[in-house]
């Protein structure tokens, strides 16, 4: 039986579907409720914080003054003109954005805590704020952090030799400015934590809806100056994270501090308004892109200027460099760029902190590159497929302008498959017929690659003070023959428990339900990083495969002894160890190994038969790739875009569970559609946030998401030990570009195209106003 490649229903789902999942809020029942009092001002000096006149019995007010002596959340980066700034757990002197927690009220129930929090008097002297890039970069703009006088927190600059010549000698220079508006990852479950003090041991257990429990534990222990061993962090069922839950937020050390100081149990469960205004935002970027093309369409040089609004502080551990520097390093994507110049800046403003969100900068850079390709095709009079074919990387491995290695992939094949499936001639006929009726159809596509499954070397290249990367797995077979794999990674809804069990099951000749994946608990798992950056299947999966192979070797040695055969000849299959015709159940071997070690004489001493092992995996990274294709209809009277067809040709290498892979693509595309058409965090000029509820911030619903067709290609690269590449982010990366190009195609008769996301109906109408279509 081969479990790899099977559409096995997720082992996680029965409990979740029965409503028996255990989320942080389920675990927090009985704890005292913490309610944060949040700043109504984007910038200001704190004069005083006055508790309610009538605090109920047992209620508490905690302010920054109570936390005196504790450090700040201050991630570092050793390069790129990075200015390290610290975010206090609760501020004492100044507030920096609307929604920043300035005090905490503790009461017996969340309702009562909210009542009291309303009555806390905040005396804040408001100061001028800067909410957007232009305001923050204007001469004489208010300065958020004295360490960064121009509000620039991070800057990268590069100009390769040959760039000037490429532009000077270009037959065509195509230029484009794009803008991506701010998004919130909007996980179904918001953030939340419950910290419980154990009086017997003095330890605190923090249950938190997070993606990186080990990192959280280290970060909190360091901030609070407590022994790391006194803190256990548990990530129970987590209702989505998408990168938002990677960061060390001030609320978590506060909860642990409360639990230790008051020797009790304290819970904070974020509401939707808090999630929208005070968790983490992303994608607030502007790029200027210039491409130098030969007359035949060959791209000779690329020059980009990237501005990223990173908010008021720097997110821990990845820093506020995560967006601008990813755009800086990865802009060329799957294209051959002989000469590259880039400048990227992260600008601080009086807005919520930026953190990674599914795809990080790739949705914006793919939008930029793919819009550039379509504009270039139009300007040069070259078919847009042919233009891409000329410029896509077609021999592997390929070293990029930025020194990354592109491993085996299918950039051109994926595009060709998508174009074939689209049936372009038929579409063009429909498009022409529709235009006669005043209906505007458009077809667009986006080709991109996605750097996935990268370990320590890639993160080290970013010069982060904290370098994530490897994953460790401890595997063991119990005396009753069950397999337990303890992973340092911490899935938050992706189905990793199922997919890893499939991988391990194949290596050990058992069924996936015999394999338990234990995760999300720092007491029960080896140190590891977590699930983010499309890495879980590649890295934790690779480590599981190595660990399972080691365990299989141990089982073979044991079986060989019992069956009196050569270990090399032992086959593990159907829960048995076979030596030719002879066989033994693995469960029986396990029992003997643990409970009858006397049978193995002197070998017991060197533990050769101990059925436990450990493995780690730390790869350099592998690029998955895809081509997304969208067909849209634009209602030119209202600006509304309807997606008529959506197709993804995806190459993520070997698929361990294609059903889970499809689910990742579906969810990613839905969030990409949100980015393309719907979601936008809006700040007023004074830094007040205008999208504090889901009545104003608009995630698409089932009604707005079309059926998504998926074609999988499986290019097996030796950059990943399992052959699997990451695909968690791809769906979100391709959709904005494919849809932006499709709308631009639809609106071509009006002489306009899309350069700003989301392409809302109002923005589309603004482009069209006063314009008539040319036939």
């Amino acid at each position: 039986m081969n479990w790899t490649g099977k559409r096995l229903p997720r082992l996680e789902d029965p409990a979740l579907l029965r409503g028996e999942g255990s989320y942080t809020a389920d675990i927090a029942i009985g704890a005292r409720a913490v309610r944060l009092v949040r700043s109504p001002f984007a910038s200001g000096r704190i004069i005083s914080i006055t508790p309610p006149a009538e605090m109920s019995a047992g209620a508490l007010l905690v302010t920054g003054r109570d936390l005196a002596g504790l450090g700040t959340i201050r991630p570092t980066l050793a390069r790129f003109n990075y200015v390290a700034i610290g975010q206090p757990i609760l501020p004492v002197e100044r507030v920096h954005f609307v929604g920043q927690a300035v005090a905490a009220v503790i009461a017996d129930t969340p309702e009562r805590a909210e009542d009291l929090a309303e009555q806390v008097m905040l005396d804040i002297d408001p100061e001028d704020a800067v909410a957007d890039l232009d305001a923050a970069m204007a001469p004489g703009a208010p300065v958020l952090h004295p360490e960064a006088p121009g509000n620039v927190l991070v800057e990268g600059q590069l100009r390769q030799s040959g760039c000037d010549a490429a532009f000077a000698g270009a037959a065509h220079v195509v230029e484009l400015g794009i803008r991506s508006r701010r998004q919130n990852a909007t996980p179904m479950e918001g953030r939340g934590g419950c910290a419980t003090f154990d009086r017997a041991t003095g330890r605190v257990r923090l249950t938190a809806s997070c993606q990186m429990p080990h990192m959280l534990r280290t970060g909190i222990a360091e901030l609070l100056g407590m022994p790391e061993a006194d803190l256990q962090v548990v990530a129970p069922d987590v209702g989505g994270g998408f990168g938002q839950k990677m960061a060390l937020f001030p609320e978590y050390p506060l909860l642990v501090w409360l639990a230790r100081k008051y020797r009790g149990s304290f819970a904070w469960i974020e509401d939707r308004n808090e999630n929208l205004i005070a968790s983490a935002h992303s994608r607030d970027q502007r790029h200027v892109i210039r491409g130098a093309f030969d007359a035949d369409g060959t791209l000779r040089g690329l020059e980009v200027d990237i501005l990223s609004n990173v908010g008021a502080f720097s997110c821990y551990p990845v820093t506020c460099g995560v967006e601008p520097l990813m755009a800086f390093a990865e802009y060329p994507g799957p294209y051959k760029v002989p000469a590259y110049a880039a400048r990227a800046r992260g600008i601080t403003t009086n807005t919520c902190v930026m953190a990674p969100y599914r795809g990080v900068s790739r949705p914006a850079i793919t939008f930029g590159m793919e819009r550039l390709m379509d504009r270039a095709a139009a300007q040069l009079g070259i078919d847009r497929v042919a233009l891409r074919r000329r410029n896509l990387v077609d021999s592997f491995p390929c070293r990029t302008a930025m020194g990354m290695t592109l491993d085996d992939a299918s950039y051109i094949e994926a595009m060709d498959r998508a174009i074939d499936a689209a049936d372009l001639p038929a579409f063009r006929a429909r498009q022409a017929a529709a235009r006669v009726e005043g209906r505007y159809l458009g077809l667009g596509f986006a080709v991109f690659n996605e750097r996935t499954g990268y370990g320590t070397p890639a993160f080290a290249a970013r010069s982060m003070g904290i370098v994530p990367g490897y994953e460790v797995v401890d595997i063991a077979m119990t005396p009753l023959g069950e397999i337990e794999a303890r992973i340092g990674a911490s899935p938050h809804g992706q189905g990793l428990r199922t997919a890893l069990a499939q991988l391990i099951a194949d290596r050990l000749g058992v069924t996936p339900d015999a394999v338990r994946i234990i995760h999300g608990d720092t007491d029960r798992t080896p140190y590891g990083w977590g699930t983010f950056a499309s890495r879980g299947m590649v890295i934790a999966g690779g480590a599981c495969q190595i660990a399972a192979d080691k365990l299989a070797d141990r089982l073979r040695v044991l079986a060989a002894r019992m069956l009196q055969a050569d270990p090399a000849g032992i086959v593990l299959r159907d829960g048995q160890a076979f030596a030719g015709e002879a066989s033994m159940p693995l469960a029986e071997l396990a029992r003997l190994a643990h409970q009858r070690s006397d049978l193995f004489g002197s070998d017991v001493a060197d533990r050769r038969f101990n059925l436990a092992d450990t493995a780690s995996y730390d790869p350099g990274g592998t690029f998955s790739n895809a081509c997304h294709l969208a067909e849209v209809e634009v209602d030119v009277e209202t600006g509304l875009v309807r997606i008529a067809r959506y197709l993804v040709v995806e190459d993520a290498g070997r698929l361990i569970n294609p059903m889970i892979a499809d689910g990742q693509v579906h969810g990613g595309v839905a969030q990409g559609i949100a980015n393309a058409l719907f979601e936008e965090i809006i700040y007023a000029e004074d830094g007040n946030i205008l999208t504090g509820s889901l009545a104003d911030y608009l995630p698409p619903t089932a009604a707005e998401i079309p059926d998504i067709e998926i074609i999988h290609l499986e290019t097996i690269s030796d950059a990943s030990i399992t052959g699997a590449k990451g695909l968690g982010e791809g769906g979100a990366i391709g959709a904005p570009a494919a849809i932006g190009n499709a709308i631009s195609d639809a609106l071509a008769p009006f002489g306009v195209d899309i350069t700003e996301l989301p392409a809302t109906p109002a923005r589309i109408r603004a482009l069209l106003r006063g314009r008539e279509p040319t036939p």
Partner: protein
Amino acid sequence: MKPAAFDYHAPLTPEAALALLATHGEDGKVLAGGQSLVPTMAFRLARPAVLIDINRIEALNFCRPEGEVLRVGALTRHARFETPVVTGPLGLLLADVVRNIAHTPIRSRGTMCGSLAHADPASEWCCTALTLGATLVAASTAGERLITAGDWFQSIFTTALQPNELLTEVRLPMLGSGWRCGFSEFNRRAGDFALAMAVVALQVEGGVIREARIGLGGVGATPILAAEAAALLVGQSPGEVVWSEAAERAATCFEPTEDINATPEYRRDLVRAVVKRALRKAVAT
């Protein structure tokens, strides 16, 4: 997002409800379907001291034609209108409109009278009631008042209803033969509050429009009648040219709201589109 504390009453008769309203006045708030009130309370934008839950008052649960009007009681849920409640153009219009009100769970709980009392500028029922010239029945311990829809809507979330009064029923005119109605609205996602909507009612005889009404919603503090635009249609034969003229007039006959969803200019674009589409639908039915 937990509501502030409140007292709760669930009277069983209209009289008991009115007595509670008389006692609590400004502090009291009537809970019918709760689809607007409860979220508003969760955000603490509304913090009534006393909730008067009318859901157990069976006497308010009715929807029946009587003479020239359709009488809709305070407990009639939106979903009731999904299949026509009366034969003729009124039942068809209400069935068309109701499909645009939010989503199924909300329609199964929210009420027509609740929407009229809440007076959200983007309420489909408010726009419909104004366009058709509905009459609203406000009851208090002192008796009943009949209020025309034109007098009912005063400002955003503000109606002629007094704090001691309960909206017990709305009476919609049964549209006779020759009337044709149409509805169109624009929103970014299915079920969202509309950025603009139009209800039109035309009486067509012998291929000529004898009477016309055009109501707009979601574009100002209250629903409004685009009377000048409607007047352009009277005496005309239905068709694209007159539709465009009326839509153009409708788009310029009001001062649009500006918010994060739409500039005034964009709202006028949307009114142009929805008026034309509602008119087309009216003659197509």
